[in-house]
């Protein structure tokens, strides 16, 4: 079994949930005004807000997705960390102080501060809702992904637990309870991740990774020869089919061997003296009736081994079996000089069954510690380069445009506090992203990766140090989801109750009515989040966060930047820019090759050749704003006058 259901993990998670719920109910007694519900009264200390930023921002995608990606694709996974962190520079230097100065409760407030325009209120609220939902889906799916293997409960139970707890947190004390949940979660995440990294460095690197006392599965290589009748002779009790060469496996360069009633798949390589070498693989069989076998046996049999090891470990030019405790740079240097076994994936169809075969790919460490294993950058086509640049642009521009991040600026008392809290966020998030490199590489070389779900690499790395650390990391992973989802629900409830109901529809609610509306919307959004988390089961976590970043960067950032730095910006320009950015980013994503694959179609048939839309949709939103603003200059004076008189 790769996973262990840990009562300690359940206990720690329950303790954290009870703690945050008690805090929420305590704070609820003081949350009677809309200022306290939507902005925590605007008196949160900048240090607390900075760590809460980290708790809000470091989602399941950061914690689980990036570590998993680094574990399987090396440096390319860390590129996400670099891009996400760089985005905070945009937040600090461009939007932090103006956002605090112009807004009250929501991102829409800041955009609409000059104009008091219905079109901005509607467009920005719709954009906030869309981005929050895109961000919510992977978080809720992540909750289900975690609960399934760790607590032995079905996916929907995990989604419901997180959904109900988060809805209670938000519906009781709004931004006040959300802030403290994010603060505790952010702080714990930094401390626990740093602890795991210190343990990784103390353990050092080894060609025989330890896994909590369990021996690492040694992947075998068998010698085989072809007999006069054409059959494959393997020995050691393994039997190859007579038609081994002509099957779908044979044509793909593999052979299926049987021993003791169990089938295993081996990769065929040329050996010496005309013979063959057969290298052990891992495979998952999906039968026509939907049942799955893991390495020829049910999942519970534990035949699908965790992977990730060093083939040749070199330190200062010498081949060694283990490094012992090392410093962070010596650790990276040893990986650079060594050869690591990464894993490739291939699909084979035979007799109505689909086989996913994972094969060994010995890779030089220096190749792992540079881009190119996931992103095609070497000898890349123009489209591949476009995809890469566009993704890096979306990561850079997306952070400062995420509504659930921007509303944290309203919780501090001054512009200076907004600035200082962003610097605390940069320090803590930057520190965490440095840790992700060691967490990912630690998983890559510690024999803990589950090839069917690399999102579990960080918790499984912790398991290699013992069940206590695993329990702490697992409960923290749940807390990670709680912190981010609560921020998203506050943002979504503000968009509906404050932007749409109060401002756009002009419902003129009393202060108590605004709080009640916010809490009611939070409960409704919580229920929608649970529903979406259940129906999107099985979707890739990071993929959907990428959508949210691309849409936020395209719909919101051009409007924020131009509002702040171009005096000719008009209300019509802002609302058109938001809608064009939103529609362009979403539209291009929906017709991308990635989505074509998800529709069950050939990616080459997709109407556009790229997956990341930011390089087109962001400039398009800027151009739209400029053109529409220039065409509607007459309105600028009138609107400004109206706003001043209001």
């Amino acid at each position, binding site marked *: 079994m790769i996973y262990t259901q840990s009562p300690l993990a359940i206990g720690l998670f329950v303790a954290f949930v009870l703690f945050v719920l008690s805090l929420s109910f305590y704070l609820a007694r003081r949350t009677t005004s809309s*200022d306290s519900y*939507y*902005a925590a*009264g*605007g*008196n949160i200390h900048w240090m607390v807000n900075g760590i809460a930023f980290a708790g809000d921002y470091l989602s399941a995608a950061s914690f689980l997705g990036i570590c998993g990606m680094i574990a399987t694709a090396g440096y390319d996974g860390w*590129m996400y*960390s670099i891009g996400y*962190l*760089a985005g*905070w*520079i945009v937040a*600090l*230097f*461009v939007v932090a*102080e103006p956002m605090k*100065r*112009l*807004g*009250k*409760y929501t991102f829409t*407030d800041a955009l*609409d*501060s000059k104009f*008091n325009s219905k079109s901005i209120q509607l467009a920005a609220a719709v954009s906030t809702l869309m981005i929050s939902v895109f961000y919510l889906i992977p978080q809720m799916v992540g909750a289900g992904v975690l609960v399934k293997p760790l607590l032995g409960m079905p996916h929907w139970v995990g989604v419901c637990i997180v959904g109900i707890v988060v809805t209670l947190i938000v519906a009781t004390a709004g931004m006040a309870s959300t802030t403290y949940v994010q603060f505790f979660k952010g702080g714990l995440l930094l401390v626990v991740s740093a602890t795991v990294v210190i343990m990784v460095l103390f353990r050092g690197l080894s060609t025989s990774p330890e896994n909590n006392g369990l021996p690492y599965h040694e992947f075998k290589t068998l010698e085989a020869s072809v007999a006069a009748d054409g059959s494959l002779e393997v020995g050691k009790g393994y039997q190859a089919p007579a038609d081994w060469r002509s099957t779908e496996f044979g044509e793909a360069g593999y052979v299926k061997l049987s021993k003791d009633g169990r089938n295993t798949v081996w990769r065929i390589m040329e050996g010496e003296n005309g013979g063959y070498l057969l290298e052990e693989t891992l495979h998952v069989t999906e039968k026509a009736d939907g049942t799955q076998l893991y390495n020829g046996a049910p999942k519970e049999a534990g035949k699908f081994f965790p992977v990730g090891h060093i083939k040749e470990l070199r330190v200062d030019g010498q081949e060694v079996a283990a490094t012992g405790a090392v410093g962070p*740079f010596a650790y*990276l*240097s040893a990986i*650079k000089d060594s050869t690591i076994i990464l894993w490739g994936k291939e699909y084979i169809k035979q007799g109505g069954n689909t086989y996913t075969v994972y094969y060994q790919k010995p890779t030089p460490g*220096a*190749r792992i*510690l*540079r*881009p*190119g294993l996931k992103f095609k*950058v*070497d000898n*890349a086509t123009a489209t591949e380069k476009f995809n*890469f*640049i566009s993704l890096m*642009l979306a990561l*850079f521009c997306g952070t400062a445009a995420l509504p659930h991040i921007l509303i944290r600026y*309203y919780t501090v008392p*001054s*512009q*200076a506090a907004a*600035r*200082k809290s962003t*610097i605390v966020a*940069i*320090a803590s998030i*930057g520190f965490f*992203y*440095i840790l992700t490199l060691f967490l990912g590489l630690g998983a890559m070389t510690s024999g803990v990766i589950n090839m069917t779900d690399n999102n579990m690499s960080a918790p499984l790395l912790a398991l290699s140090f013992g069940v206590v650390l695993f329990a702490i990391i697992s409960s923290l992973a749940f807390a990670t989801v709680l912190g981010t989802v609560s921020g998203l629900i506050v943002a979504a409830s503000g968009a509906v109750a*404050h932007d749409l109901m*109060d*401002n756009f529809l002009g419902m003129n609610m009393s202060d108590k009515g605004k709080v009640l509306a916010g809490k009611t919307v939070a409960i409704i959004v919580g229920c929608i989040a649970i529903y979406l988390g259940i129906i999107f089961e099985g979707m890739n976590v990071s993929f959907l966060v990428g959508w949210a970043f691309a849409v936020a960067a395209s719909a919101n950032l051009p409007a924020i930047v131009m509002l*702040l*730095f171009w005096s000719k910006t008009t209300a019509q320009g802002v609302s058109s820019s938001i809608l064009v950015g939103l529609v362009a980013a979403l539209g291009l994503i929906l017709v991308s090759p990635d989505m074509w694959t998800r529709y069950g179609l050939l990616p080459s048939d997709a109407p556009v050749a790229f997956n990341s839309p930011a390089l087109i949709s962001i400039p398009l939103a800027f151009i739209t704003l400029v053109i529409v603003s220039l065409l509607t200059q007459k309105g600028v004076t009138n609107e400004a006058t109206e706003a001043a008189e*209001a």
Partner: protein
Amino acid sequence: MGHGPAVKLEKDKSTPYKSKLGIKFFLFYTALYASFVVINSVKPSIMQKVYMGQTVAVLYGFFLIIFAFILAMFYNRLCTAAETRMNK
């Protein structure tokens, strides 16, 4: 329509100075980040070169993360000084 900050803000005369400073710092860091992206897409082999025992990719990645913090601290220092000077 309920706009304006949730708490009453003091008038800050240093806002125009801080905005200009922020743009300069932003453009400077953006140039460093853009260079990183351009090298990766145009000449990725540079990233595998080794200096001080590490690949350029690792060094550049650490630099972008740590320098963001250093630049942020420097910016804060200049802004705090401007706030003190201009809001006397």
